[in-house]
């Protein structure tokens, strides 16, 4: 796969989450869609401002949990009834109340693993390299105390000069261009 080249986007740095959310709303209102905000802690308002409302992590988690439940209960039943039937103090081979406990634990195990790894997969992580890290001020601020809005060049509405002047009107600390 050829590496993309050229301009990834134009990125503005803000001092406060309020400034970021106001700028993000303005950008969405101006018709930009391919954009992202970068913040040092979760800012839900910013996600809403750029039109990101729904995530699928809960669904992945539910499916994982149901899978764990079914897998363990089926395994227990198969082992205890068909594969290796043991007479334990005259209890029935299919003594389902005893099977509930491991099945319950596996429900939690698989839904937990699905939530965590599902979250990473949906986020496209691990991804050690990303163009936004090329912005000179990004690493100093995005994981500490500054807020960023990046308008991406793949947006059909994108024009480098226009995006820059748009962002400069939003009271940023600075606006930089981000290369791939």
């Amino acid at each position, binding site marked *: 796969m050829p590496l993309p080249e050229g301009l990834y986007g134009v990125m503005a740095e803000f*001092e*406060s*989450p*309020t*400034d970021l959310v106001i700028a993000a709303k303005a950008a969405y209102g101006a018709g930009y869609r391919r954009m*992202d*905000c*970068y*913040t*040092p*802690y*979760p*800012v*839900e308002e*910013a*996600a809403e401002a*750029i039109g*990101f409302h729904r*995530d699928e*992590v*809960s669904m992945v*988690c539910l499916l994982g949990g149901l899978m764990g439940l079914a897998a363990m209960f089926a395994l227990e039943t198969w*082992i*205890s009834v068909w*594969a*290796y039937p*043991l007479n*334990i103090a005259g*209890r029935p081979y299919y*003594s389902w109340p*005893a*099977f509930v*406990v*491991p099945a*319950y*634990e*596996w429900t*939690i*195990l698989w*839904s*937990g*693993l699905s*939530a*965590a790894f*599902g*979250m990473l997969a*949906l*986020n496209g*992580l*691990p*991804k*050690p390299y*990303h163009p936004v*890290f090329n912005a000179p001020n990004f*690493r*100093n601020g*995005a*994981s*500490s*105390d500054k807020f960023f809005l990046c308008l991406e060049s793949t947006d059909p509405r994108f024009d480098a000069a226009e995006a820059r002047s748009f962002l400069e009107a939003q009271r940023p600390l600075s606006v930089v261009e981000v290369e791939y």
Partner: protein
Amino acid sequence: MATKDAPVNNPMLDPVTGEYRVIAPGHTFKSVTEKVSRIVLTSHTPLGWWFGFVLAGGFVCMLLTAVTWLFLKGVGIWAITMPVAWGFAIINFVWWIGIGHAGTLISAILLLFKQGWRNSINRFAEAMTIFAVVCAGMFPLIHVGRPWLGYWLFPYPSTMNYWPQFRSPLLWDVFAVSTYATISVVFWYMGMIPDLGTLRDRSTSRLGQFVYGLLSVGWRGSVRHWVRYETASLLLAGLATPLVLSVHSVISLDFSVALLPGWHTTIFPPYFVAGAIYSGFAMVLTLAIPIRKFYHLEDLITIRHIDNMAKVMLATGLIVAYGYSTEVFMSWYSASHWEYFMMWNRMFGAMGWSYWVLITCNIALPQLMWLRKFRVNVGLMFLMSLIVNTGMWFERFVIVVTSLTRDYLPSSWGTYRATKWDYMTFAGTLGLFTFLFFLFVRFLPMIPMSELRLMLPQAKVREKHEPLPEAGD
């Protein structure tokens, strides 16, 4: 530190509520980041750290010695005989796994209840959980006699064509504890990813950048990622809550499914869980009090945290007291000769002293925590945390030893006296726990920076632009 009679202008007191603050005033995003990441990224390791690390390392060596000798000679070097076939191994197993419970409680249940004060202590409480589970998990494994065959506990297609027996609580334990360990590690690591990103960006050494870069999986703080991350944390918290309640319940079933007097009782699951949380909070205090002093974190782990944890201990301690009194009541109310004798023997028999140690440490002394003056005194609270942990250890000792040494048939009565290998193994796990904890505070962010930022007043999004920053605050 201030007491109740502190002047009104004490900055650590909230002027409106009169409560101690969760975080000292005047902190900014930058200052909390600096404060926490400096502990990890400094090239100057404090001398005190080395001292504690080497000391704990010595205990780990002792553990290795004890375990090596155990593997060479077998479990006969321990004091276990009939009728006490488990002895220290199960006492320590239950004690350690109980300690782990507070970590999950703080990180999961208090998150669901939106208890903001938990944020500064949840990371190392979770770390404590994991290290306690490591210590706990070791005991059943080395107790099985041939630990290299420990994998026989898992259902796998073997050439011998046999499968485990799913009606036994001991097998439920395998699934409960292994799930607990896995979910705790995942929850802990996932919570750390954004902070590892911060460390990657702030580290000045090549090695630091590389290692933290790998561990942070390229976290860049995109708000889309944050939304999914928040959902996943909430889901994990929701899952860890029933998990933590089930783990100690399942462990208590190891006892209560048996027909032994003093074990065969339905109060065990809830009272084991309360006891677990009780000892776990005590251990969090045992760890937090020296750490906040040593690393000067009084701004972030404030008297408010200590006060709140004391209140949780008081509440869970009372549940435990209720459990003990139910046991005493039931031994009378059951009208069973065996139950009655068990309780008499527990209180006044050969090992009766251990019951009174337990009552003193777990019920009598902790009542001092009703006093606010006591709760906000850091030194006394440290002492109290040690007392409660001792008491909880004795609880397991009493349950295991007094019941087993005096069961139905006087001809099978016996006694129990731990050998030096028992003590070395137990002290060794204390060393291992401390050793792992020292590594953790040195190399990983022990306070979640992203969650602290969220607690600051300037983290809120307002309707309108704020005035442009001038004084640099």
